């Protein structure tokens, strides 16, 4: 369907546009829906500060994750040309073919994330390697001429901010007339490097210590795949011819696999390059880190509900692999939550809760009473307290504060126990509860995890773990619980440590058990009679079933049961907690509508069932019939659905006029209906051209007076 192919590469960045508006305006937007009693100002401020915190956190994470890659790249680049500068006289260097140092940077298919990486990369390069960094994109460089223009533009303007102001005007004047050739680039390079040399050391000490005297010129090709072969070849050939005058370094940004280099460049050209491979962290690991640091922490009060998290993760895994889009989606959740939930004003750090609860208005108290989770809570209380909760605002506030504190404590405990459980489940065969902690998190949020089959089977598997595995897991759990901020875990840690010492004691006794088992085997070998053998086997089976478990097995059961009890106590799904609506964002449908829009379905709905959008009672149609009150385009659309690949315009017009006339003059005589009304004709033509504009039909050359369908069912 051609129409939607036009929607190429459009990514939904809704929140960013919302954010870019001035802060007053946005605060006003928050207000526009609900009146001021619902603390819109405060909600907006909370939302902003929360987002800023999260943004800073994500940026920090990204920086840490990219650090390794960038360090490697920087060391490669600083090595690349220094070798030649040091020992130009040596024989091998004279004989060797001077290749262009090239870094092939494999970044993965999540193209939307690359921009950020490249920005970080060029910053780091400008700080550490060379002020001369140019970023080229394929869409700017259809030919070698455009490439050179772009390259020189970027290099020469980056020269301006390094140099003093006095040169600026003369550079600008000459830039328009400058010849876009390598020779002018070289003469520019010579002039800038000479200038840096001749300058007094005091003035340029900083920069000269960071860059050596002839810094390389770094050219980054952002999207290697999209460049045409010819442009790349020509540029590399030219560059390699002048490598002695212009120390060029190339960086290829590769989204798929490094094989693309061999596919794009013939051997004669790739032999001019000295290619080294650098691989960035896989985007899945990146996402895991983000989820770990943003969601599985009690640092931020805002939480994602199960469905919402699932939507975000699904978009990531099924569609784009883009961590940026995931974070944008997360941002959208925050904005949407604070915008649509009046009580989100309470979604803040624990220290602020008391003050905010106290200043709640009566309307807000009513809002609390309306929360489904709160209602459930009230119903469980005794009648006296029920009345107090429903009528007395200050009593309600006190209770709310207590409940919110509980919720915070719940979060802290939840995260630690979730990690402990993950230690167990992630080492089981076949991963019944998922390999990643995010899957476990989703499972726990969804419903009571201990009631699921997967949990049951993973407990079964856990009961079969061997001694060493079990001990290491317990040790990991102890570490997790020790480092967690929750206060209730002192006892748990003690208990786990007790288990550990018991396991150590067991090892000493292990040798005795072995003897026992050996003796029973010997007994078996004595009996030779078939009947006897069968009997003994049955007996042994019986006895094994009823036999007292070994000490190790008993202890193992105990440990698993203890873990089970922890899970039942702490991993209660958030939806069961009172007042969870304040912290958790659950409107998955809204999110899906924004992030994973289905334009095709929407268009079909609009045309097929205009009532859906127009909300006009007259349009409400029953069954498959075509109402003549619908807009013309809807009638035309419905009629065209019944046609084949080629549509006869005359027949179509006939059908259209029949539908339109149906109500107006049901008893009109046959003679007048023969001739189609001019107005109806005009309406028909307009509707058809609207359909053509939307990409449903196109004029056909196969038959005169026919149009071709472009949509489904044509063939």
């Amino acid at each position, binding site marked *: *369907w*051609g129409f*939607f*192919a*036009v*929607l*190429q*590469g*459009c990514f*939904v960045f809704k929140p960013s546009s919302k954010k870019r508006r001035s802060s007053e305006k946005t605060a006003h937007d928050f207000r526009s829906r609900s009146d001021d009693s619902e603390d819109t100002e405060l909600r907006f401020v909370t939302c902003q500060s929360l987002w800023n915190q999260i943004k800073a956190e994500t940026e920090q994470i990204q920086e840490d994750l990219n650090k390794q890659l960038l360090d490697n790249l920087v060391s490669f680049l600083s*090595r690349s040309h220094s*070798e030649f500068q040091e020992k130009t006289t040596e*024989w*091998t260097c004279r*004989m*060797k*073919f001077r*290749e262009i140092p*090239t870094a*092939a940077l494999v970044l*993965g*298919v999540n*193209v939307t994330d690359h921009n950020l990486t490249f920005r970080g990369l060029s910053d780091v390069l400008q700080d550490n390697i060379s002020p001369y960094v140019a970023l080229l994109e394929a869409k700017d460089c259809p030919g*070698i*001429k455009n490439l050179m223009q772009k390259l020189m533009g970027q290099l020469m303007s980056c020269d301006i901010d390094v140099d003093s102001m006095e040169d600026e005007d003369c550079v600008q004047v000459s830039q328009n*007339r400058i*010849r876009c*050739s*390598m*020779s002018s680039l070289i003469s520019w390079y010579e002039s800038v490097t000479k200038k840096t040399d001749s300058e007094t050391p005091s003035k340029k000490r900083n920069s000269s210590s960071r860059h050596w005297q002839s810094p390389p010129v770094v050219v980054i090709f952002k*999207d290697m*795949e*999209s460049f045409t072969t010819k442009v790349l070849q*020509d540029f590399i050939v*030219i560059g390699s*011819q002048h490598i002695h005058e212009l120390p060029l370094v190339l960086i290829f940004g590769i989204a*798929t*696999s*490094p*094989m693309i280099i*061999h596919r794009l460049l013939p*051997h*004669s050209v790739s*032999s001019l390059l*000295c*290619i*080294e*491979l650098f691989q960035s962290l896989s985007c899945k690991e990146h996402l895991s880190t983000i989820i770990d640091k943003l969601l599985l922490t009690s640092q931020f009060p805002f939480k994602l509900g199960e469905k919402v998290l699932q939507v975000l993760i699904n978009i990531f895994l*099924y*569609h*784009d692999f883009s961590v940026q889009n995931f974070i944008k989606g997360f941002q959208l959740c925050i904005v949407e939550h604070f915008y649509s939930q009046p009580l989100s004003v309470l979604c803040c750090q624990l220290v602020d809760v008391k003050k905010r609860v106290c200043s709640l208005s009566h309307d807000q108290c009513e809002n609390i009473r309306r929360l489904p989770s709160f209602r459930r809570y009230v119903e469980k209380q005794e009648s006296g307290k029920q009345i107090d909760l429903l009528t007395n605002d200050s009593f309600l506030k006190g209770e709310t504060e207590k409940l919110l504190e509980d919720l915070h404590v719940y979060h802290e405990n939840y995260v630690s126990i979730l990690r402990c459980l993950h230690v167990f489940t992630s080492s089981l065969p076949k991963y019944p509860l998922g390999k990643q902690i995010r899957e476990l998190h989703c499972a726990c949020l969804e419903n009571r995890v201990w009631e699921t089959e997967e949990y049951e089977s993973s407990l079964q598997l856990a009961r079969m773990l061997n001694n060493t595995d079990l001990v290491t897991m317990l040790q990991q759990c102890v570490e997790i619980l020790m480092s967690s901020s929750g206060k209730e875990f002192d006892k748990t840690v003690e208990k786990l440590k007790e288990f550990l010492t018991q396991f150590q004691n067991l090892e000493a006794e292990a040798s005795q058990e072995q003897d026992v088992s050996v003796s029973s085997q010997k007994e078996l070998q004595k009996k030779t009679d078939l009947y006897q053998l069968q009997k003994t086997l049955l007996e042994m089976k019986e006895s094994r079933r009823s036999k007292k478990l070994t000490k190790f097995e008993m202890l193992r059961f105990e440990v698993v049961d203890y873990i089970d009890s922890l899970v039942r106590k702490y991993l209660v799904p958030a939806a069961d907690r009172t007042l969870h609506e304040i912290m958790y964002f659950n409107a998955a449908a809204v999110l899906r509508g924004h992030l*994973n*829009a*289905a*334009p*095709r*379905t929407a268009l079909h709905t609009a045309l097929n069932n205009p009532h859906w959008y127009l909300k006009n009672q007259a349009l409400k149609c029953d069954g498959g019939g075509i109402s003549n009150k619908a807009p013309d385009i809807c009638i035309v659309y419905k009629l065209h659905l019944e046609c084949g690949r080629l549509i006869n315009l005359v027949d179509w017009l006939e059908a259209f006029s029949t539908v339109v006339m149906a109500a107006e003059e049901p008893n009109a005589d046959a003679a007048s209906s023969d001739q189609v009304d001019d107005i109806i004709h005009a309406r028909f033509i307009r509707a058809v051209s609207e359909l053509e504009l939307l*990409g449903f039909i196109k004029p056909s050359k196969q038959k005169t007076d026919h149009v071709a369908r*472009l949509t*489904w069912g044509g063939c």
Partner: protein
Amino acid sequence: MPNLEHPAYPAADLLRLESLVPCRESQVSMLLSIFGERQHFSFPSIFIYGHTSSGKTYVMQTLLTTLQLPHVFVNCVEYFTSRLLLEEILIQLQSSSSDTEQTCPVHCDSLNDFVRLFKQAVARRELQDETLYIVLDRAEQLREMEANILPAFLRLQELTDRNVTVVLLSEIVWELFCPNVGCLEPFTMYFPDYSIGHLQKILSQNHPPEYSADFYSAYINILLGVFYMVCRDLKELRHLAALNFAKYCEPVVRGEANERDTRKLWKNIEPHLKAAMQTVYLREISSSQWERLQHDGGEPGQLKGLSAHTHVELPYYSKFLLIAAYLASYNPVRTDKRFFLKHHGKIRKTNFMKKHEKTSNHLLGPKPFPLDRLLAILYSIVDNRVAPTANIFSQITSLVTLQLLSMVGQQDQLDGPRYKCTVSLDFIRAIAR
């Protein structure tokens, strides 16, 4: 081999020239006789062709500089438009005339201007009584410039009425230049490939100062034995020789063998060179990595080459889209019903395959398919329901930008775009796993 001799040039220069251009003496003497004496008019244009690194550029450059003939040397790849090319020629003419004088920027938009400015420049340099040589390297690029450039260069002598000879260097034969009617035929000259003996001689010439010429020439002999089958490129061979020489010397440096001990040295270097052929030569690993590896004494197997990283991680639906695209590209349309419909009718086996369809579709290459077909196959191969969301459509375009799919016929996109799947069966297998 005949010694170079020409009455017009001093014997010392000729001797030096001869030592600089080994194995190309006959071509050089031929050129010299064509050039004649300095003031003689020569052929208006000479076309020299030969395979990669058969010494065309090097010989021309050495000849012109050694004998100090006035010349201009331009690479046509570097000056990719006719304007840049013409201006570069003029700039070089000006700058060589007087180094101290600041060269004013030249503006030359057309050949007419060029001829005028060229005459001025020649007059300024007082070259009327000497032949000026304009050498155009990689002349095949001229074909992509304006149509009048090539014919004009061929008869530049006539157009400018000055003593000038244009030399075109190219790797392809003159016939492929397809000159239109009225073109002056240049004098064509062929540079044959270097034979293995030539290569041996040339490569041995540049031995490192620490070692004797014989030692190095034995090394070159081994090197050529390994690489001559795959590579006859002189530059590449010299590069490889320099890269691996350290390894060859190792036993000598350690004192395990002396310089004459050829057999021992051969045993040491041969597997190493074979490994180099698999890796460095193909640019699977870079030469600097190779050197570091040599230095650390590691095995070449440690470093994975570029081709080893073939795996591409794709999002779930992108994988299915790619598989669907592959199916659509390599299966005939008629079979779709049979493969992807649950209740397809019975198809008579005998008549089903037409004769031409029996040849493997993989030999015929991918066929284009419309977007509708791709989506229809996608819906039938994915287990659960797929909503046609904007994300799915944008994934198709991102597959196109990643060059995994390609768009066929860049016409109106509303007109039902058609795609082709450009990945191989192995790639699809790896994805489908």
